[in-house]
């Protein structure tokens, strides 16, 4: 009865490597002396990610693309590998941001002693001694591994496990901020409780889908669904599973955690998580919806469309009234989810279809949000990062380069031409319009206008407003952060100016397969 599963390690090794690095990190944590841990962990993580990235590229270029492995548990197809690569790229940036220790007097953004109570002598001692939790790197690696699995999951079970693998470290990382511990812990609690709640819903949907199809494999579900047509069981399953994924991406009305968590989490975590989670979640969502539920497209598209509309409108509108930069970017992330969902409404085509559109959007958005939050972490006052929008006034004069770079990211998020965000926006709108979803596109355009408002206002505040007395100042970061910001900016611009190569790559990568 037992058949050895045909696992193609040639295509899987990048994921396994990342997970192995995570385990190695744990070992390091256990045995390496404290002084050596930071450097070891960071180099380990960077090396692992770089190697995995190289591996992903090799897999992407290799001939085995499109094969399923582990008896269908994982599908190593073009879009999947692309999103894996993307996750790895932003995670590289994430590691660099995690490792930033120059901003806060030689310590990182993570708590010195998470177990020490906020405001106690123990906490102060930990801070003074420069303690930090180097466990964040293995945690992050686990999350990255989970995300990579999420991108290529070929069955429901894998999807669920990967979801948890990527989520649990995120819950933990959210609660590890060095400053504003209370906010951070609150964010962690909220993220965790809601995450668990939504994964419960997701799981129930999974059960229903399984009940309908009798199989966990996405492809088989797709076949059964195409054969038998829609049953309430399947539809309810789709709905509940969608909720789980929409929660992860932060779509309205499942978005409420987003601003709180984005604001509360340590900024490097926010930066990385906002980019990476969204990439992984959308990759999984695209696969799930196109491969398993493709036949029910006519049924779920209206619902997703309504959610997209709500997400865009509310995300953008709420962002308008924010006074905290991180929170504003959090709501902006919600709005972007809406735009991405617009892209989801399209169909997969041979040429430029919704898969390409969404993935490109994710690329552009990933770099922009990574860079933007990285800059947020630079802008500080006496008590750490300055979130208050008003205190950013005049930054364009005191630090023109930083402000200008931030403006580039904002403009990209706003979707202005010559930035990646524009092509991304163009793409998702085109995908949706091509599928005849013009009402959603119309709303999307409307909410883009709203969204532009707060991005542009931010630029106005930085460049055209006189600084206040307690204005924030920019702290010079280490090379790590500088490089991340610079590369993100370059990528953002390049994606706008010469998007051709990436688009061609995506077109060549084809669509999601089962």
């Amino acid at each position: 009865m037992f058949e050895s599963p045909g696992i193609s390690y040639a295509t899987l090794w990048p994921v396994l490597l990342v997970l192995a690095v995570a385990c190695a990190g744990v070992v390091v944590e256990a045995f390496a002396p404290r002084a050596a841990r930071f450097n070891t962990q960071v180099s380990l993580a960077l090396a692992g990610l770089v190697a995995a990235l190289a591996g992903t590229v090799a897999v992407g270029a290799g001939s085995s693309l499109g094969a399923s492995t582990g008896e269908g548990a994982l599908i190593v197809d073009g879009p999947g590998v692309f999103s894996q690569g993307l996750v790895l790229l932003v995670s590289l940036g994430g590691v660099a941001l995690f490792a930033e220790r120059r901003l806060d007097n030689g310590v990182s953004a993570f708590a010195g002693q998470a177990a020490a109570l906020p405001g106690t002598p123990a906490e102060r001692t930990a801070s003074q001694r420069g303690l930090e939790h180097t466990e964040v790197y293995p945690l992050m690696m686990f999350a990255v591994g989970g995300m990579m699995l999420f991108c290529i999951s070929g069955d429901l079970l894998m999807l669920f496990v990967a979801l948890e693998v990527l989520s649990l470290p995120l819950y933990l990382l959210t609660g590890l901020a060095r400053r504003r511990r209370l906010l951070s812990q609150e964010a962690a609690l909220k993220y965790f409780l809601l995450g668990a709640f939504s994964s419960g819903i997701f799981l129930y949907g999974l059960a229903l889908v399984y009940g309908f199809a009798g199989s966990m494999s996405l492809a088989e579900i797709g076949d059964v669904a195409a054969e038998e047509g829609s049953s309430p069981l399947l539809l309810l399953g789709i709905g509940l599973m969608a909720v789980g994924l929409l929660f992860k991406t932060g779509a309205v009305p499942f978005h409420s955690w987003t601003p709180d968590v984005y604001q509360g989490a340590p900024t490097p975590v926010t930066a990385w998580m906002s980019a990476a989670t969204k990439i992984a979640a959308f990759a999984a969502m695209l696969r799930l919806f196109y491969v398993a539920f493709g036949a029910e497209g006519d049924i779920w598209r209206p619902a997703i469309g309504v959610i997209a509309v709500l997400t865009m409108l509310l995300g953008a509108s709420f962002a308008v009234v924010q006074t905290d930069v991180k929170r504003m970017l959090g709501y902006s992330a919600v709005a972007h989810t809406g735009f991405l969902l617009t892209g989801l409404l399209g169909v997969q085509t041979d040429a430029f279809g919704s898969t390409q559109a969404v993935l490109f959007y994710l690329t552009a958005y990933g770099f922009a949000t990574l860079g933007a939050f990285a800059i947020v972490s630079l802008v500080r006052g006496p008590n750490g990062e300055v979130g208050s929008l008003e205190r950013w006034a005049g930054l364009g004069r005191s630090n023109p380069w930083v402000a200008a770079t931030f403006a580039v990211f904002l403009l990209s998020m706003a979707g202005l031409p010559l930035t990646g965000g524009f092509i991304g926006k163009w793409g998702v709108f085109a995908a949706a319009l091509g599928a005849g979803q013009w009402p959603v596109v119309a709303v999307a355009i409307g909410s883009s206008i709203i969204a532009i408002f707060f991005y542009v206002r931010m630029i106005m505040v930085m460049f055209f407003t006189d600084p206040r007395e307690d204005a924030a100042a920019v702290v010079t970061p280490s090379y790590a952060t500088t490089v991340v910001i610079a590369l993100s900016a370059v990528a953002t611009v390049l994606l706008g100016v010469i998007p051709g190569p990436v688009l061609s790559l995506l077109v060549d990568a084809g669509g999601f397969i089962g």
Partner: protein
Amino acid sequence: MLTILVLVPFAGALITAVMPARPKAWAFGFALATLIAGIVTMFTAPDTDLVWIEPLGVHWALEMDGFGKLMVMLTVVLVPLVMVAAVKDHDKRWYAWALALEAFALLTFTAGDLFLFYIAFEATLIPAYFMIGQHGGPNRARAALKFLMFQLGGGLVLLGALIGFFVVSSEAGSPSYLISDLAQLDIGTNAERWIFVAMFIAFAVKAPLFPVHTWLADTTEQATTPTSVLLVCVLDKIGTFGMIRLCLGLVPEASAWATPVVVVLALISIVYGAVLAIGQDDLLRLIGLTSLSHFGLITLGIFAATREGLVGAMLYMVNHGVATAAMFLIAGFLIARKGTASISSMRGLEKATPVLAGSFLIAGLATAGLPGLSQFVSEILVLISAFDYHWLVGVIAVTAIVLAAIYVLWAYQRIFTGPAQLSRPVSDLDRREIGVVAPLLVALLFFGFVPGPLISAASPVVEPLVNVIQAGE
């Protein structure tokens, strides 16, 4: 060659931004280089067509027909002039932005690819935003924001049209954004109309037309006059440029379908803008609002879609650019002297500043369409075409000439005439300022009597458009 035309100012912008010493001189040098490049391209300008973003069918395609030449010339001539005008109270950032604006504006006017056009169309806004926001009146930040919001709003609507084209083009085969390809495209009536509406909204915001004009006066009030010149005289032209190039050029049937509505909007703009201008106390707002009226006339000429109308509209775009530039710059010099733009706080300045007053009057009368000054020719052509379209349209449009006389002369009367009351000495235009204004005034006079070169540039472009439209009807 056309690529160079675009790249020169762009490179100039970058260099100006980083140049530690004498950045303004560098900027001016680059503006002059662009002027030279512009002149050279008048004669030898092979079209460029390179594939840019293959999956989307986007090309780096540059081409320049007679109409494009007119707009390019207007741009490359105005930029050095405003740079001279701006030298005193603008820093190097402004100069860098101005060059960037020039680069993108030139790109818009020469784009042979709709996607490229759109990118340049939107990209112009960033320099403009910073130019408004960094120099000018106390409320400039808000004005800049308002400006940008209106423009980007319009731009996003245009994006809808852009995507619509892509979808149609993809369905027809391989996608292409080349304007020449799109013109061949068979778009369904319904889609064509929607595309038209989207494009028109964008261009109406840009131009501007009633009722999406409200950013205009706020912007011109707060921005410095050199900025306003670039905005109103160059940037806004993209709106009407787009109406001709894209609305008439790509979706002629829909244009014909929408003409009644457009004409009504244009008429409202003409009268409304002029009436608003009459009621202004702020000189810069006044000048800004006159443009609303003029853009109404230009639009009217475009959509009347006769030979006279189109030629007139194209000429009008150039002439309005020159005349309004002169108005703005002179007003700027005046305001620099008085420290305020409030008309009611000026009186009897003619005595102290006869040259300034005279220049203002000439520019103002040009704006009012006095024969012998360049704007007249375009205005009469537009009026003729409007009358040709429907006599009532002509009758309403013609009120512009009275209203224009009122706002120009009343402003002149309030500012320059009456007993001189000078709390502090006010000097007349100096050499630099005359150097800025004189070329514009000479151009106004010259093209008033010899508009031939402009017309011969515009005519070949008009011919096919008129044929298409008449065939469409």
